[in-house]
């Protein structure tokens, strides 16, 4: 959007880029990442079922009982969902920041995309560690 002067055109109309670009994208990621996480959890469980029954000769019932036991308190699911809210926020904010501060040529855009991926992953790793320390401190791990 910066490259094709779309951000400049917002500014000339006096429309704040934060309201029009950053807020909806960040909010969307904040809300959708937990849904994506739930979807990934479900696909993971079904993937485990497929491998367990087809490759490792578990029965479906055995797999179901073991999964149910593992998820008795649902904390593994909940903690993932809580973390994903923060991860979505990080991805949205870093992506928007890097996008709004990119240069005016396609090479700069490429660098910004790479940089936003690297910075997002770094922040997510750090954030994940902080969550785990906090959960341990609170006795959830």
């Amino acid at each position: 959007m910066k490259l094709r002067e779309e951000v400049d055109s917002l500014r000339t109309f006096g429309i704040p880029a934060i309201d029009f670009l950053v807020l909806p994208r960040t909010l969307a990621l904040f809300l959708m990442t937990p849904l994506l996480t739930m979807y990934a959890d479900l696909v993971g469980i079904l993937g485990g079922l497929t491998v367990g029954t087809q490759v490792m000769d578990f029965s479906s019932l055995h797999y179901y009982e073991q999964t149910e036991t593992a998820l008795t308190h649902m904390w593994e699911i909940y903690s993932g969902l809580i973390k994903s809210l923060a991860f979505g926020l990080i991805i949205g904010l870093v992506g928007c920041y890097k996008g709004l501060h990119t240069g005016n040529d396609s090479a700069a855009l490429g660098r910004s995309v790479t940089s936003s991926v690297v910075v997002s992953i770094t922040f997510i790793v750090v954030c994940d560690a902080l969550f785990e320390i906090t959960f341990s401190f609170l006795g959830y791990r």
Partner: protein
Amino acid sequence: MDSEERKIILEAKDLHLCYGKKTILTDLSFELFEESCLVIMGSSGCGKSTLLKTLTGLLKPASGMVRFENGDLWGRGALPNESVLSNFGVLFQAGALWSSMNLLENVSLPLEVFSELNKKEIEAMASYKLGLVGLSGCEYLYPSELSGGMQKRAGLARALAMDPSILFLDEPSAGLDPINSRQLDDLILELKHSLGITFVVVTHELDSIFTIADDALFLSGVEKKLLERGNPNELKVSSAFQEVKNFLNRK
């Protein structure tokens, strides 16, 4: 009409433009007359687009002022005065249409944010603006579905959305074939005469300059200042500067 009789709509005074420590233009002063078309011309890198950015609220000058009617565009600190800015429309070089919106939504957005019209009135107004630039029936097309010339026209329709007093056009002919370029020039003249809009156009397309300009500023990238001002047809033969003559005679 003598310049004394014409109403000044915008005045730039003692502008000093720079990027960081790099000076782009100094001591730039000029007036813009109502319902005229002022072309800013000069060789590549002379500061035309930088000057346009300052006039449209995108780049704060290091010093100097841009006065529109009774308001100073840069009189309120780091950000431009929005009440002044609301009188301006801008067509960017690449059209700068918002790619996730169709044309109707592109033209409607400023009206939705700043006007108190209801949804139906906004849509009718946006359709009318698109009709003004010859894009009736294209309301629901997305920017990626348009040719370069149509994108420029759509950008012009969006720039017209808030009924601006002054329209700033950044290299409107760039990337267009001669026929589309000529059609855009005709559209500019038509809008100027029918709606009484004042135009400021940055271009170095000589055909466009001679067709649309009432007045022109020639910026010198070497001296970093306004070299000469006048009607381009007159400057072509009687300019005091060889650089201006060479530019206008393509030498």
